[in-house]
Every structure is written in C-alpha cells, then in structure tokens.
C-alpha cells in the first residue's frame, strides 16, 4: 500500500493514526525486548557471581580438585592481564601505523585501497580462525614451546589489529587538514607533522579506539584455547602455558560441581567488570577529544 501525496495531504484519517500509534508501539516494544537480555544477564551475573566470590577467590590459584575446595582464579586474572597487555603492545602500534599510512600517505591510492579492504576482511574473520592460524603455524611446529602465553597474545593481537586500525583511521581523518597544511607551510617535514601535530591532536580518539580493542580482546576465549591453553598455577612467564579468565570460565562450566560452577559465575562477573572498566575509561578519553 503506497501512500501517495494526495492521501498524505488529507487530514490523517483514524486508520492512519491508529497504524501510526501501533507501529510506534511496536518499535518501542522492540527496543524494550532488546534490553531484556541485558537486564537478565546483569542480574544473574551479580546474583550468582557475588555468591561465588569466596574468601580466596582473588588470592589463590585453582586447585584442580573436582570434589574438594576449587580454589580461586588468581592465575586466570593475572594471565588475562599479561596476555592482553602483550597483545595490546603488539596490536596498537602496528594498528595505528597502518592507519597513519592510510590517512597520511596512502589516501585513495590503489595499495591503500587494497590494505583498507583486507583490514576490513580481518574484522570479519571469526576469532577461532585466528586461534587456528597461530595453532597450525606456531603451536604444532613447537616454536618456543608448544602452548605459550605469547602465542595467545599473538592470536589476540591479530584480532585487535583491524579494530585499532579502523577506529584510528576514522579519528585521523578528523584531524583538520588546515593543521597539517599550516605546519607544512612553515617548512616542517612530513614525519614531524605526523608525529608532533597529527598524532597529539588525535590522541584521545586513538586511546578510545585502542582501549575498545583491548576490551574486545580481553573477553575472547576461542583464540586462547589453542594457543595459551590453560594451567592451574600463576606464572609471569609468557613463554609458558598461561591461564586466562575466559578459558577458566569455559572449563568450569562443564564441571559437575556447584562450587566450580559458582567460581565460573564469579569469574564471569570479574571479567565483565574488567571489560566495563576499560570501556568506561575509553569513553572518558573520548570526551576529552577536541575533534569529534
């Protein structure tokens, strides 16, 4: 039923008003439905998660005992922080470097378009495939041990890289061209313009994008299953097997022991709060940006 100009010009009939009201209601209802899972997930996370936070939750390692005291998740929390920190240290510089190339040099050139396309492709690659990549290239070949923390970091870095690049490209594009031109006109070389003018101007936005990438990487399980695997004890050596929160939760879910399942809920709550904290910092950084 197409609405022609004539029917529109007539005062809205009762039927049209009713349709309007009904459809507005449907859209509002849809929004409400979208928020139901959020409320439920948050409710269960707190209701069950707080219960699972036993005395030694943050200070002891998993014991590996299926029946007795399950222990805490210290090794998993520290492992997640270590693995993600290394992943960020790899992905953020490279990701921003690629974005700088695209915005400052490549622009609309053929090579830049190809790079842009493949970065897009990377955002769509399922995270388990990145895990599989690292598994078949580095883990099965036994380079530097079999399962190690740094291999997990590499898998996460691959996942985070396109996110960093895409967001950095957007922010760098927002830096006013006049700033660059003014500096160039004063005779400042291109690299200095980029490092001293463009990057500082875009900094808050770059931080936001990078932190959001970190938050995304932190919650990933699949790439770590094949790469850093899991272990009970705490280690600070990225060259060894390393525990992580998502993997710990994944393994705890299938245990037929309530104490372990409760630990999974508590770990999930911890993980979500960690991710939310990083997301929040990212938003605050965005607020300081002068160029949105």
């Amino acid at each position: 039923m197409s609405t022609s100009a004539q029917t529109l010009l007539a005062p809205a009939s009762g039927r049209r008003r009713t349709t309007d009201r009904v459809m507005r209601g449907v859209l509002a209802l849809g929004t409400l439905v979208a928020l139901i899972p959020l409320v439920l997930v948050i409710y269960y996370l707190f209701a069950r998660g707080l219960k699972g936070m036993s005395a030694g939750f943050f200070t002891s390692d998993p014991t590996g005992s299926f029946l007795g005291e399950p222990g805490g998740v210290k090794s998993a929390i520290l492992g997640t922080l270590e693995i993600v920190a290394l992943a960020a240290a790899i992905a953020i510089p490279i990701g921003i470097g690629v974005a700088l190339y695209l915005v400052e040099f490549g622009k609309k050139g053929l090579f830049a378009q190809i790079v842009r396309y493949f970065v897009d492709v990377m955002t769509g690659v399922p995270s388990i495939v990145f895990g599989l990549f690292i598994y078949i290239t580095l883990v099965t070949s036994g380079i530097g041990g079999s399962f190690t923390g740094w291999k997990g970091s590499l898998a996460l870095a691959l996942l985070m890289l396109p996110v960093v690049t895409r967001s950095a490209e957007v922010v760098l594009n927002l830096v006013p061209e006049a700033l660059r031109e003014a500096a160039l006109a004063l005779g400042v070389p291109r690299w200095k313009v980029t490092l001293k003018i463009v990057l500082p101007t875009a900094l808050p936005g770059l931080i936001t994008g990078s932190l959001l990438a970190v938050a995304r990487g932190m919650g990933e399980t699949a790439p770590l299953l094949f790469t850093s695997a899991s272990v009970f004890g705490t280690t600070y050596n990225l060259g060894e097997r390393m525990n992580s929160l998502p993997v710990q939760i994944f393994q705890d879910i299938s245990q037929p022991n309530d104490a372990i399942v409760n630990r999974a809920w508590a770990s999930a709550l911890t993980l979500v709060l960690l991710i939310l904290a990083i997301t929040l910092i990212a938003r605050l950084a965005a607020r300081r940006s002068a160029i949105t």
Partner: protein
Amino acid sequence: MGAGAARTTPAGRSSFERSAAARRADPLFRGGLTAVSALVLVILGFFFVFLIVKARPALAEQGVLSFVFSNDWNPSKDVFGAWPLLAGTLITSAIAMVIGVPIAVATALFITELSPHRLRQPLTILVELLAAVPSVVYGLWGVFVLIPKLRGTEQNFSDSLSFLPFVGGSVAGPNYFIAGLLLAIMILPIVSAISREVIATVPVEHKEAALALGATRWEMIRIAVLPYSRSGITGAALLGLGRAVGETIAVVLVIGNATQVGEHIFDQGYSLAAVVANEFGEAANDPLHSGALIAAGLLLFILTLGINGIARALVVRAERRQSGTGPTPEPVGVAGMSATGGAA
C-alpha cells in the same frame, strides 16, 4: 609537499633548505609505514595459504565436495563429512537472523526517529553494553539460565505448533534454538549500531518533506527512511550474519555437540566453529582428523569472507551516497561503537 618549497639562492644553501639527513627522514618514515601495512597483507596471505596446505590431506582423502556435503562426521572411523556442522551453523545463524534483525532494526529506528532526545544516548549505550559481554559469559548464562528456564516453554511450543515446519518432537536441553537465541542477542548490538548509522544518513529534507506533506511519523519512516536505508540495513544484517556464523564459544556450550542434522529446531546439533573448538585437542596426533578440523576452519573462513565482503560493500555504498562532496564517511560503528562486540 612542503619540503623543497624554499628556493636556493645562487650563493648556496638557503637557510630554509634541510640537511641531507633531514631530507632522507621523510621517505624513510613513509617507507616504514608502508612496510607495516604490507606486512599485514603478507601475514593474512601467508595464513590463508598455510590453512589450505594443512587442510589438504583431509580434503584430498575425502574430496572437497564430499567433505562439505556428506552427512557423516565420524572421527573414530576417519570419516569426515562436514554437512552436519555446516547445517548447524546455517540453522543457528538463520534463527539468529529471524529473531535478532527485526529487533535490532526496530531499536535503531526507535532510537534515531522516535525516542525523546534525552533518551537517545542512554539507550544507545545500553544496547552497546550487550556487546561488552564476552561470548563465554553468554554461554555460561545460556547453560545455567536459558536452557533450564526455557525448556518447558519450548516443549509447549513444540507440542502445540508442531504443524509448523521444523517444529515438533521432544525438546533436547541444548539445541539449535537456544544457540540461535544466544546468537540473536549477540548480533543485536552490531546490527543495531550499523543500522543506526545508515539511518542517520537519510537526508533531513526527505523526512521533512514527508512530514510537511502530512505523513504521520510511521509513514515518514516507511516512505522516507526505510527505502533510503534499505541496502545499508541489509548490509548491517549481513555483518551480523558473519558474526553469527563465526561465533564459537557460546554455541559450543548450548548446541549439544551431536554430529547429526536435526530435523527440528529443538534438536541437538553441531556447528563448524564448535567442532574445531571441541575436537582439536584429541585431533593433535591424528593428521587426518586435524586436517579435517582445519578444513572446517577454512570453510568457516571462506563463508565469513563471502558474507562480509557483500555486507561491507552494501554498508559502505549506503554511507557514501549521502556524503557527496564531503569527507569520506567511515563506518564508525564497525570499528568504534561495536568494537567490544565479541565473536569468540
């Protein structure tokens, strides 16, 4: 650009001119950044080739077509037909699209066109919070909340509406529907965010023209907003599909991991990503089995590449159309807003 703009005087080096070392810095900087970009392409290409090489033994043994379409996945007998897995991936993704996309689009329309101005930002943030929850947490919630709480409702639904296609039979605890429902929740934020951006590109003039002609709000949405943003919303939905197809951890926990093609949506099944996550440990010492898993990963990779390629083209075109002469609009949502979205 700027370098070399200053003229040299006949007397020799002008005070504006740079030393030889300084002149070399710029090409070096540019070269370095280009090399980093090229490195990303090389890594991606290398992985793709390596996947194919490693999947080769299994694919050669089984035959590519028979690997994809034969309905028998039995590692203990070295028979690898991935159809039950592929079917599970497609069924759960389809359920996710049917449930998730309409709700996501409704959310996007409500936030951009109907909601009071003050509510816009809070609603946007709330919907995006869904993307901050990691997939393993959705899986945990699915296993201990959704599966037990929905089972009765599912059984009633299955019994009373068994005349519908794919509905009926007795409800298995973990099943396609639960997996699809979780996926719907997980793709909601990304589909909604990108739809919102596409809808925001509808020219105000079009909307005002409709309203000035006396259209009601809904009529304005129907005749001005939806036709203009249709291809972009389709792209957004496809990006969501790409996510759903590749999602692993949430699915592996709630799909039942049975290597069969279930007849009903409440039957147990398996998915491509789930089988890789589940069986890689036991496959480590069996080159044929691990080759088959890598082939499953390759199939997943190609599937998501195809879906995302089409989706990206639709979204970029939709967002570019509006700008005309302005700066190139980038699909911010993909990188910025939904960055926390998790396919794990």
